[in-house]
């Protein structure tokens, strides 16, 4: 079993009791979608902040795997290997 860690921006941490990251375990590589399903399973409000009810990543939510934004990779199907950092960041938007 490998451990995966998803780092959260400060603004979302109150939704998970103040934690700065969430963890999940899996056998081998997982997709970003599977990882999000796993870590938000106990936090439905957090889940809705990140993805809409069709499962799509919200437009101004960015997820980085080892420093690369997943929209430039394979979207939510991007594979995450054990030890890779997964970072959620809100994009710079609004006025």
């Amino acid at each position, binding site marked *: 079993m490998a451990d995966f860690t998803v780092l959260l921006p400060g*603004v*979302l941490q*109150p*939704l998970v009791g103040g934690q700065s990251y969430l963890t999940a375990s899996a056998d081998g590589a997982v997709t970003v979608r599977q990882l999000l399903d796993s870590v938000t399973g106990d936090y*439905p*409000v957090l889940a*809705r*902040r*990140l993805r*809409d*009810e*069709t499962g*799509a990543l*919200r437009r*101004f*939510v960015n997820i980085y795997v080892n420093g690369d934004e997943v929209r430039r990779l394979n979207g939510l199907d991007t594979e995450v290997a054990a030890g890779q950092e997964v970072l959620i960041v*809100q*994009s710079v*938007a*609004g006025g």
Partner: protein
Amino acid sequence: MGLMATAESYVLAIGTKKGLWLATSPDRKEWSLSGPHFLMSEIPSIGIDTRDGKTRIMVGVRSEHWGPTVAHSDDLGATWTEPEQGAIKFPDGTDAALERVWQIYPDADSRPGVVWAGCEPISVWKSTDGGEHFELNRGLWDHPHRSEWGAGYGGAAAHSIVVDPSGEKVHIAMSTGGVYRSLDGGASWEPRNKGISAYFMPDPNPEFGQCVHKIAADAAVEGRLYAQNHHGVYRTDDNGENWDSIAEGLPADFGFVMLTHPRREGTAWVIPLKADGERIPPGSKLSVHRTSDAGKTWKELHTGLPDHEYNAVLRDAASVDTAEPVGVYFGTRGGSVYASADEGETFNEVVSHLPDVLCVRAAVVVGSDAGAAAAVEQSAVSAPVPG
């Protein structure tokens, strides 16, 4: 009955582009403000439910980053609750996602717990548990016209919901699509736009496709409604079968607001803007116009309002309360909010320099709620939607 049980207070909820402010007043002249609640999230819709002797404030909240949701407060904003699974969520199979809640409409006193919502994408929803969970209205969602409905500048949404006392006749308005009517409590819907212009379409009198900005019912005359259209102000006396212009006497027929008196026949308020292409008050003078004879004549109401104003008033950025005389409230995209305790004869500025005002709702609260209204001014504001 103790003094507290009869003490009246007024609550004014102000939804803006960057959060919610709540104002309370003992007399509708002096206001105390709390906020911002939900800082950096827009509040495009508010419903204040005062049925059953309680006060519940429901708000549509939308963060550019984190999406839309609905929250409610039973203590006048001291604390907010957001249902864990979301109050409004498109069901599997629709392949749709909620964009924005445009309207939250508590139903009649005789149907406590029933709350309607109008949303983007164009959809109507109904809750029977006081706004905590809503169900999608399938009759409208599956309507064969859906593919032909369009988007106005602000998005494609059902933004007006009017339910008659029986609960059977329901009128909605959408931009763009126009007025749709149900005679069976929302099970099925037909367009009802005869007489309403869609000058921007090849056929200016289509069955549907109009950009009706707001509708409101005459509380005292069955079957009578008023509409502020994308150019055009109208009245129907037969539940939307025919609409007739009542724009004569107004300085302009463009605008977004349509308010009606909660009890008195023939009384409505509009806030005209010069034109589609010039969305500023006519002559840059901000005024409310009121009819007391169902649109035959209009009276300009300007006392207390600025002589120079270049901001528009959006469709839900205006409200009435239920007191006697009725209070009239509105806010501008420039962040000024005005209140009148005398049906619009005179206005006082409640607050200025807020972000763009998107929605305003006012209500009379009684007894312990009034006490809570005072307490909330001192309380910390918690925001379940991070900005």
